[in-house]
């Protein structure tokens, strides 16, 4: 199966808009579902290798299952708090502009640009969200975007499968750690757990 430019563009735009949705949604069940779609949006990139496609599909479903398990175990459905909108939006704006500026130096294609913006969005979520769950999802979005970029640039099939499996392991361990923090503090709020002490 050969991937076409149109497929790439559609996939990349899907990844970006799903990333945006993930950063804005408040309900954790919806968030988990959008994370699944986010993972699946990378599927068109794996069309060149059937093994890669299968592993990618399996990883996306497994991540979805892990997210649902987390929501079920914690019993918390909605986000606890968010940073002040001005600070949050300014940081997002700075990251997106910086990513676009760096990439414009290389005269990059649209899919690459969109993945880079998704990456910035993921890093933004990981650094500035106050919710344990959203921080994990932010890192997941960032890894997915970096992974998408890697496939676009290089994409040796063995490396791709190895990266997929590492991604699943990382999400699993991140959720486990988030669950441990929730269990011991009784809150998903990063600030309440005093996680940001210097």
């Amino acid at each position, binding site marked *: 199966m050969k991937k076409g430019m149109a497929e790439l563009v559609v996939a990349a735009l899907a990844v970006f808009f799903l990333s945006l949705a993930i950063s804005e949604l408040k309900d954790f069940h919806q968030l988990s579902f959008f994370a699944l779609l986010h993972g699946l949006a990378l599927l068109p990139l794996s069309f060149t290798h059937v093994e890669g496609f299968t592993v990618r599909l399996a990883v996306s479903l497994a991540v979805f299952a892990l997210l649902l398990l987390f929501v079920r175990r914690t019993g918390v459905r909605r986000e606890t708090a968010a940073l002040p909108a001005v600070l949050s939006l300014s940081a997002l704006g700075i990251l997106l502009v910086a990513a676009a500026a760096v990439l414009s130096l290389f005269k990059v294609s649209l899919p690459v640009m969109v993945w880079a913006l998704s990456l910035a969005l993921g*890093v933004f979520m*990981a650094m500035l969200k106050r919710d344990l769950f959203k921080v994990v999802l932010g890192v997941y979005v960032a*890894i997915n975007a970096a992974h998408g970029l890697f496939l676009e640039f290089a994409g040796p099939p063995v490396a791709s499968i190895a990266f997929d499996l*590492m991604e699943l392991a*990382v999400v699993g361990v*991140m959720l486990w750690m988030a669950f441990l923090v929730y269990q011991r503090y009784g809150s998903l709020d990063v600030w309440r*757990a005093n*996680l940001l002490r210097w």
Partner: protein
Amino acid sequence: MPYIFSPLLWLMLLPVIAGALSPAVGKVSGKARSWLSAALEFLAFLVAFHLFLLVSGGSPPAFSLPGLSLDGLGVFMALTVTLLGFTATLYSVKYMDGEMNLDRYYLCLHLFVAGMLAMVLADSLVSMYVALEVMTLASCVLVAYRTGKEAAEAGYKYVILCTLGAVFMLLSILLTYQVFGTLQLAELKGRVPSDSAVVLPYIGLFAVLGLGLKAGMVPLHAWLPDAHAEAPSSVSSLLSGAMIHTAAFALMRLLSAVSVLTPGGEVGSLLVSFGLISMVVGTMLALAQTDMKRMMAYSSVDHIGFILLGAGLATPLGLLGSLYHVLSHSLGKGLLFLCAGAVIKASGTRSFRELGGLSRSMPATAVLTLIAVLSLAGVPPFTGFVSKFFVCMAAFEAGYPALVVVMLVVSVTTLAYLLRFFHAVFMGKPSGRSPEAKEASPSMLASMLFLAFLCVLFGVYPTPVVEMLSGAVSLLLGGA
């Protein structure tokens, strides 16, 4: 040589076998599991030493496995990692006695060692990335091993930040592939395309962000004090003595392979700047601590600054000093964390304000702690003096006398806060919880003694290490 007899294969397999066997053996006997773990890690250390002798004999064998290969650089780091792996498992025999979930502890400890070995022996950027993730995941479980709130916090912070670091490393890898068309470190050597001048600094920048975070470089060190403080002391010894160095080593290797580590170059200057900031900030923050493990964690930030600064100078002497400091900090900080573990186990507190006069009840631990303190501060004739001397000389030769002054001030401050800790814990009158303290067990003392002996040996007689590292530096300067 048949594949199955390859020492490199066994070097990688032994920790993995130890990890796989731990849960099964643990069901039969907890003591057998602990001793088997230590024995297999010791075998791994012997294999690394055998490989070291082969490589330093001048005829490096052509050992390789898929994604891994052996050279003078890798074998030096492998020796350091297996040494710390062995001392940590030997120390764990008594130190972890009676703890819960020891199956998980030993499994992750061995996987952690295997991940670090894969990281330093990686011959491609893909295997380096996978090893980085394995190392992160295994060590994260160890950091969150204790049941307290702080341990969970530390584990969460650690995995989130280090995974973000891995994302940046992935970006560096993909840009490398875009420019060079390969991810094999050996093939990157001397293949700088003429139109890559714009992209190369970005490869360096992303690598510095990704691996610098893992190395605990300021301002990306936020995970380090929590992780080092909350992990069991045997794990802290590995985190501080080996893991942050494997990251710094991988950074040097990647930067030199893509030819951006040049004297006075942009990336070199960036490393020097981060190194300088890490030294100063790490020292200041260490000075403010009263929790002994947090103080040691910030001290690691200070020492990683020396390593990055030496590497950033990118001169033969700078790289030699940097690699020598990897060794001396591994030995000194590994030893200091083990000594701290013995004190904490005996007294039940990490705050050195609550302690005093422990030299009467723990005289051997006191002497070993003093050796670690003096070595880390760079006092002759210990190994820390030799490495700091090389880095200072390199900075002076490169025309940065101001850097030498800063390094001297930082070293004096390091001596001050480490001596303050030593005085508070071991000197004066017994106070607080001190009267209850008892000397560490023989197996714990044996592992500490081994590291202390090497701290003195490589300080008094640095020639074999310098000779071996000179070859490693040539490899770095030559590319891959």
